[in-house]
């Protein structure tokens, strides 16, 4: 790989840069519009730098009308609970399926494979009816419970555990550990790459999910970030683009910052979960 700029390389770089500009355009306009006042937005110019910096006004409007801290807190609570439950439930099950012999393993494997096919969209109707009957709508329980089991998590950990040497577990048994001790002190620490990858996948998926929260939550105080933004849009009638962009910016920022800080892990996590799923 020589460092000289050939015509071919120049062309490739130009192509990549042009594409990058298009992909970044929404972010650029979001940043720009969040600082423009109403009249400037409606003058429909392509200029990116606001004539009068209205960032303060727009952000104040956004923060006044959406309870940003509540939304973010709800997002963190829901995603955190989901992730912890998923890992706590899926890891022991995957370990049992990968390393222990028991009669139901094959049937369980079939259920997991079928489960991979069934998204929340397919089970939402009966679950909604059930939560309605139990008067559990508008609660963290309703937001979290259906995702406490992740067949995808089981599948991912299963693949990972199968690749782990049996000798590791035999050695732990010889050292006198119980099976639960083996899971907690040998399997989980060694499964860390898989857990990280799964965590990124899970958090991205549930932070961004609109479908299920939209169904079970009508009360603003339980709204997750996407749902909160939807409420805000409805309230604003979609006209005040300055405030809308400011709100959008605030809501988008946490995950984007997390991504930018740990992008290598993000990409690895998505790749790993993607390729194995």
């Amino acid at each position, binding site marked *: *790989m020589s*460092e000289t700029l050939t015509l071919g390389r120049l062309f490739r*770089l130009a*192509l*990549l840069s042009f*594409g*990058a500009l298009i*992909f*970044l355009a*929404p*972010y650029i*306009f*979001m940043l720009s519009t969040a600082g423009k006042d109403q009249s400037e937005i*409606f*003058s429909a110019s*392509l200029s990116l730098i606001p004539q009068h910096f209205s960032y303060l006004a727009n952000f104040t409007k956004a923060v006044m009308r959406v309870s940003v801290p509540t939304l973010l807190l709800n997002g963190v609570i829901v995603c955190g609970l989901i992730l912890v439950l998923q890992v706590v*439930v*899926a890891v*022991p*099950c995957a370990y*049992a399926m990968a390393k*222990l*012999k*028991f009669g*139901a393993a094959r049937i369980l494997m079939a*259920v997991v494979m079928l*489960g991979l096919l*069934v998204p929340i*969209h*397919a*089970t939402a*109707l*009966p*679950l*909604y*009816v059930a939560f309605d009957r139990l008067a559990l709508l508008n609660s963290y329980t309703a937001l979290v*419970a259906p995702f406490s*089991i992740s*067949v995808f998590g*089981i599948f991912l950990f299963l693949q990972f555990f199968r690749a782990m040497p049996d000798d590791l577990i035999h050695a732990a048994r010889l050292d006198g550990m119980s099976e639960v001790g083996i899971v907690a002190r040998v399997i989980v620490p060694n499964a860390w790459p898989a857990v990280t990858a799964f965590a990124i996948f899970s958090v*991205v998926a549930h932070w961004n999910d*609109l*479908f299920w929260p*939209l169904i079970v939550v009508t009360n603003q105080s339980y709204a997750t970030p996407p749902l909160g933004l*939807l409420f805000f849009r409805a309230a604003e009638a979609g006209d005040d*683009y300055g405030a*809308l*962009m400011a709100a*959008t910016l605030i809501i*988008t920022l946490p*995950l984007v910052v997390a*991504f930018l800080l740990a*992008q290598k892990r*993000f*990409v690895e996590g*998505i*790749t790993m979960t*993607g*390729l194995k*799923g």
Partner: protein
Amino acid sequence: MADVALPASAAETAGRREAQIAWLLASPAILLMLLFIVLPTIAVLVLGFTDFELGYGGFRFVGFENYADLIGDRTFRRSLWNTTVYTTIVTPVSIVLGLGIALLIESEPRGRDFFRTVYFLPVASLLVAMATVWQYLFHPSIGPLNAFLALFGIPGPNWLGASSTVVYGLSIIGIWQSVGFNMVLFLAGLTAIPRELYAAAEVDGAKSAADRFRLVTWPMLGPTTLFVTTISVINSVKVFETVKTLTEGGPNKASEMLLFTIYQEGFVYLRVGYASAMTVVFLAILVVLMILQYRFLDRQVHYT
């Protein structure tokens, strides 16, 4: 004989103990799978044969009446058609772009991390939020996109507001959002190709980049491409966020998509039985896609 029997029974006890522990470890997962996956799936299949509506007390079994209604339901047919159009646009374009960008990034040592980050950014962004930004970009009078087109004297359409263009508008957002995901999968596939194969291809006389792509890259990416295709199709069929946020199926049902129609029917009009029948169709589509993938995997891209 007792000498032989004794170790066998010891092994049996050990085996039973191991099975007990396995059950114990797997039981929470089994219970939750039954509760949140198996039972609801069965319930959907059953509900599809009823006229159950939320808010009314009882329901009765109506056989295939719901499915018969679906065939004649113009909204549902429109919804299936729109989803098909959306999928046939978004899937191939996002795969070709994802592969192209991955190849460019792979062959260009400079700025690799930067470009990967930029193209992946939409995957990590809140789609509902970014849809709002797109709505502004697409705005017929104040949107930058049409202002840009106007520079070249092209009158821009009312992207999300006209029934003739709304599916294309949503498709553009869908492509923008999924290219990065496909790209990282292709990048992973590319790094998994042994370097020696390229060396062998060069020694064997593959002079041009196109020759090497045909001899090594494309066949070696086979499993990745198949997987990316399946995932892209499934994700396109599941399009919901942008529809709900931006168009609510409009104008005039021109952007009704499968999941949005199910959502409206089941959770807005509360006709659970009828919506369940739609859900069964949706599930059937997913099953068919998976079967197609496995068939193809066995025949075409399995090398060992």
